[in-house]
């Protein structure tokens, strides 16, 4: 029996108990408790009826340098990072979207050089794309691009290169990053996800 089914049974039992109290008990306080039980039980049942999604911490993509043989291997890892740890898909669409809060990334790997993409990810305020999806003068997109190599996202250089490989592959371009550029663990800075490494973050915006 799944956890949801167990909780649904508990919820139904609580609602049932509440109904029994209201039907057979005359003491006012007990009746109020029965009423509250029905309300809380129904609330739980409604909450159990909607899609059940837990938020898990992002899986760390293991970079076993020995197994990454080709740029396509890097693109495959980059695709996973794009939709998970990198959180890129939260704001960016791949293909036109009216509701997207950031620029469309379809074909971006063909339009931009790898150096430019790297700069966009690590120094997002260096060059800001404007939104031309509406009439009148272009405006800034509502979402501000975060520094992807800093916390809370904190991609490593290997991960960023993999994302670039994915963007290029997705755009039908030859992948210009190579597995030989990957930093071997122990010879490069560690991933900045450990609390002790992350201590002083940049001062948050002062508006």
């Amino acid at each position, binding site marked *: 029996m799944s956890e949801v089914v167990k909780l649904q049974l508990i919820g139904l039992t609580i609602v049932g108990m509440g109904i029994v109290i209201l039907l057979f008990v005359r003491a006012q306080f007990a009746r109020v408790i029965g009423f*509250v039980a029905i309300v809380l039980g129904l609330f739980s049942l409604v*909450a159990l009826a*909607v899609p*059940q999604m837990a*938020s898990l911490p992002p899986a760390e993509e293991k970079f076993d340098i020995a197994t990454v043989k080709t740029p396509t291997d890097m693109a495959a890892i980059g695709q996973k990072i794009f939709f998970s740890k990198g959180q890129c898909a*939260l704001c960016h669409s791949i293909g036109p979207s009216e509701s997207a809060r950031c620029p469309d990334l379809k074909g971006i790997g063909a339009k931009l050089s790898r150096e430019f993409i790297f700069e966009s990810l690590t120094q997002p305020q260096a060059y800001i794309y404007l939104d031309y999806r509406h009439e009148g003068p272009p405006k800034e997109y509502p979402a501000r691009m975060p520094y992807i190599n800093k916390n809370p*996202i904190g991609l490593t250089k290997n991960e960023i290169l993999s994302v670039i490989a994915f963007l290029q592959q997705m755009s039908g371009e030859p992948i210009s990053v190579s597995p030989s550029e990957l930093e071997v663990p122990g010879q490069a800075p560690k991933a900045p*996800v450990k609390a002790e490494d992350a201590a002083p973050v940049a001062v*948050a915006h002062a508006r």
Partner: protein
Amino acid sequence: MRHQGGHLQRLLRALRRQGGWLPAWVFAAGLLAVPALGLAAEGTTAGPVDYRDIPGIGSRNIVWVIAQLHLLLAGFVLGVPIFAWLCEIVGWKSGEKRYDKLAKEFTKLLTSSYATTALFGGILLFLLIGFYPKLMNYLTDIFFPSFVFYCILFLLETATLYLYWYGWDAMQDGGKKTFHIFLGFLLNLFAFFIMIVPNSWATFQASPVVIAEGTDIQRAWAATWNPTWWPVNIHRLIANVVLGGYICGAYAGIRYLAARNAEERDHYDWMGYVGNFIGVFGLLPLPFAGYWLMREIYQYNQQMGITLMGGFLSWLFILQAMLIGVLFLGSNYYFWLGITHRIPGSEGQYKKPIMTMLVILLLCLGVWMTPHSLVASLEEARKMGGTHHPLLGVFGVMSAKMTVANLMILVTFMSFIMYWRAGKQETATWAKVARSVMGAVLILAGIAVIVLGVWGYFVPAIIRINYFSTSQVLIVLFVMLTITPLTALLLKSARTTTEMVWGRMPPRAGYALVLNAVMVILLMTLMGYARSSSRVHWHIYGVMRDSSQYAFSPALGYAAAFMALNTFLFCMLVAFIFWVATMGDKAKAGPGVSKGDLPHGMPAMAGGAPHDTDQRS
């Protein structure tokens, strides 16, 4: 072995002799020993410990329950003084003793509830230090100056509370009463600071500002003044007023249901009205404060905003819509019951407007609860051409939801105005003009809100958020700020045509009050989960990652079970506090003691006749 067997037999005999008590004590002792087992398990590791846990129960679950109870109690303890102080001022200004009596009745609760809140705060602190030593060490390092300030505030609050409560009867006349009102002000001022200081610790975890340089005080101040601090402060302040009002209403509702005579029914009917009124008074601006908070979150960090509104927490906001919708319906329903039962002969007169408002509220609730993406099977999704319903899909976006939220506020406000004006006839010469102006303002505002809402579909999100939604909020505020004083002026010279009579509400009115309180508590537990989950796998967003086994946010169904449990426990705690606090009164009153100073079949002050002179001191 024989010796041990003898012990066992003696123990079993003792258990039998003691009936149910001894096993209960043994069980309780076992429960108390559970933490020791858990902590001992972690104690074998060498070096500093990042986390401790209690296997089976889970440290996160325990902290969840205790923190939520502490927060709800704190909301109650901070909301009640605002409620009591407002009642005291009304009583002082109007001369109606029953307001003063009501204020005193609720202040009495403060002493026991204050201690209970502090107790849960202490338990929470010990648990946090025990379960999350590394996190607490970090927070202490940053916030130590504010810890000291917090302790001083507690001393001041405690001293003021003692003076306010124990000096109530001694400070009833002349200048002393003014001083007592001032003490009430101080009580609320210190309480406000007691609220905002820990808010800074909590909001820092979501939107941290960390500076590496500067003195301890400079670092603490920078961390305190983080981007979501003030939006949360304002939101919680208003929410506490709402909580205090609705809990007063629920208490009155329960007492009304259990009332044994007409005097009690009158008194608790009136108390229920006051509680509901203050709850609604706070509820109307609350969505605006929530909107501001959400805006600040988006501006601070888009990913966090999207996680909340469009990510795995998006369904939470459908639940929130349901709870708020029920709360609006419950509050309006109580107003409507008041109009039809407290004002004799008005049943038919207000039937049509009430039905119209009910239909509008239900339609608005339907739109608010429409999800952006529907839960659909693969087959259904294929037929719809995606998870967005071809017709209902348009209601699942923010433009529609902002519009109906504003309309629901407008309707609730008009319910209140209708209740206020019921049973009176305006005598001012300019009454007709005023009524026309109010009608025009209301209709134009409703149209403007809808037009902006529809227009919002055709403009970029940034325009809608920055201009359209803000304009909708300002329009609704304008309506309130125009119609309220105008109605007050009109009613100043109004003639009472039908006296309002207390104690005639049907039992379902009592249940409506209880329902409203439960909705508010559930909402607080729900939004607590949202606030905590928006940090995803971070203790301090972007600064200190949660590397424990609980570095995930559970699904909504599991979380809802905890919310329901916490709500139930809090209701029981509050019921216990009320019971303890009123135990002495019941003993003092005894059977058959006159309650002559309570209103019996008397006209009302707010919402009723203003001429109940024999209630004035």
